[in-house]
């Protein structure tokens, strides 16, 4: 790619940063909308990770909630039991999530599992995680959950300030994504998404790059999961369940556009707006949500970025 190709990336990153930074000003002092906006950033960051793992190397990880949760629970419990500072335990959580994701990926590649089997293995892992957290009551407090607090020194304590901390996490993950894609690894990812066999033939170590993508993505998920734990003030198995994390992330990425830089961001905005429209319907909202999902998947599966590229004839990264 030439220099101009990267310029589009920089412009996009800048626009995303500025627009998202203005959101708290736009929503005013309302804490409800500020919380929704913060959650939106969290899901965008998850979607960036999902993009690396699924969008680029076609590994269907359905254990995002479980990965985020393992990192969060590990960090919170270690901090509580050993009286450590969260600053010390968060890296451990991130490392654990990264190793776990890498291990799943390594085993799946070695066993030659197809996309659907990777999906089932990781899905089953999410269920094991959910039941373990429920069952290990002495450590995790079961369904009641654990109370957490901010990171000290004003980080993740005040709502508006937290928004910017989490925005920084999101921007860092987008920048990480950008550099990953322009590196040697990015070229390898593009090659193996097109045709794994051909990629292997031209000398790309498919196992290495798949495991790399899964580890980096999972570590990112772990980081976001832990940050969320300290932001929200409360964690429980439901917070990290399949329905509250994986499905939302999947829909977000597909709506935005797989394999693109700004897809996770656009998808996050789209999904949040959609969710807010559906919310007042009360009991009916699951039904409407399902209908929307089906309609969008059938008619719109290449995502917003692809549509904007077509309509606007723009170069959107």
């Amino acid at each position, binding site marked *: 790619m030439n220099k101009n190709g990267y310029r589009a990336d920089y412009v996009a990153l800048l626009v995303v940063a500025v627009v998202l930074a203005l959101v708290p000003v736009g929503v005013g002092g309302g804490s409800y909308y500020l919380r929704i906006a913060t959650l939106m950033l969290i899901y965008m960051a998850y979607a960036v990770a999902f993009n690396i793992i699924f969008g680029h190397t076609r590994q269907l990880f359905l254990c995002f909630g479980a990965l985020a949760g393992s990192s969060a629970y590990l960090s919170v419990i270690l901090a509580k039991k050993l009286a450590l500072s969260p600053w010390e335990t968060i890296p451990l959580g991130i490392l654990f999530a990264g190793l776990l994701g890498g291990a799943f990926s390594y085993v799946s590649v070695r066993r030659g599992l197809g996309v659907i089997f990777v999906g*089932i293995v990781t899905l089953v892992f999410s269920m094991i995680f959910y*039941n373990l957290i429920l*069952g290990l009551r002495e450590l995790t407090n079961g369904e009641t959950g654990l109370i957490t607090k901010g990171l000290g020194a004003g980080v993740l304590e005040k709502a508006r300030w937290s928004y910017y901390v989490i925005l920084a996490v999101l921007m860092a993950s987008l920048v990480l994504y950008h550099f990953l894609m322009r590196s040697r690894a990015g070229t390898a990812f593009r090659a193996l998404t097109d045709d794994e066999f051909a990629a292997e033939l031209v000398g790309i170590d498919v196992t290495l790059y798949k495991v790399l993508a899964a580890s980096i993505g999972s570590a990112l998920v772990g980081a976001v999961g832990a940050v969320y734990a300290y932001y929200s003030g409360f964690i429980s198995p439901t917070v990290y369940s399949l329905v509250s994390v994986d499905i939302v992330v999947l829909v977000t990425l597909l709506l935005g556009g797989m394999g693109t830089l700004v897809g996770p961001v656009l998808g996050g905005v789209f999904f949040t707006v959609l969710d807010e429209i559906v919310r007042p319907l009360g009991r009916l909202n*699951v039904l409407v949500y*399902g209908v929307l*999902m*089906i309609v969008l998947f059938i008619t719109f599966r290449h995502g917003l970025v692809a549509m904007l590229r077509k309509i606007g004839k723009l170069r959107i990264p």
Partner: protein
Amino acid sequence: MIAILVDGIVQGLQLSLMAVGITLIYGLGGVLNLAHGQFAVVGGIATALFVDKGLSPLVASSLGVLTAGVFGLVVDRTLLLPAYRSAGEERLLLGLLITLGLSFVVNGYLDFQYPNIALTLHLATPSVNVAGITVRTASAVTSLMAFLAFLLLFVFLKGTLLGKSVRSIIQNEVGAGLCGINPGRTRTLIVALSAMMAGLAGIAQGLFSSLGTEMGNELTTFALIVAVVGGVRSVNGTLVAGVLLGIVNAFASYYVGAYLTLIILLGTAVFTILLRPAGLFAYRT
């Protein structure tokens, strides 16, 4: 001991009834049906509604199974068409996502429309004595239903020309098409049949305890585990895996409690995929 064993076998048969549908639909259509538990719930809740209308449980159950079948038919002919139109990985993914959406739709609709309905069928005599063992009538009836359903399925698959064409599509869709078999129509038939068997499993659930509108996802999960352990393309494997896991489930629930049991079952599924991806009883090819 023997009582637990019998319980496990019956539970396993019920699981197999669900799982065989997932196996057939995946084998034939390349769609992993994540709304399969919802098929069972639709059948069960329809039965409950018919019973409320004053029909006898037998008639209501037949109508319930039929409702599940019609529901499956409609889903196959409308929602799944976009998935069938694409091929390979795209089809797998689209099928997965569409059925996931469908499970939300069914859950949401039933919860909205019939929030307080659950299927509970009481049989006239609670238990019978068979060769010195006390067996709940519900278990006996369920086993009988499952045996009949599987017998019919095997006769259909092995003995009829249509069954032969079903097996040929599972082996090779393009090849079957070249021999003049219409994969689309056979697929619709199989989806409807699978939905009916799921409906039967839903009614069996109502015989044992009760079937609520919210149970779809749980049923899907168990059926998925059984289908995976049995090998997602093998009907015989699914039947054996269902009974095996049913027995494991019954013994484990008795000795170590429900929480660890679920983890044991889930662990079994993971290790099966990792050690023998084609299923425990797959032939080596």
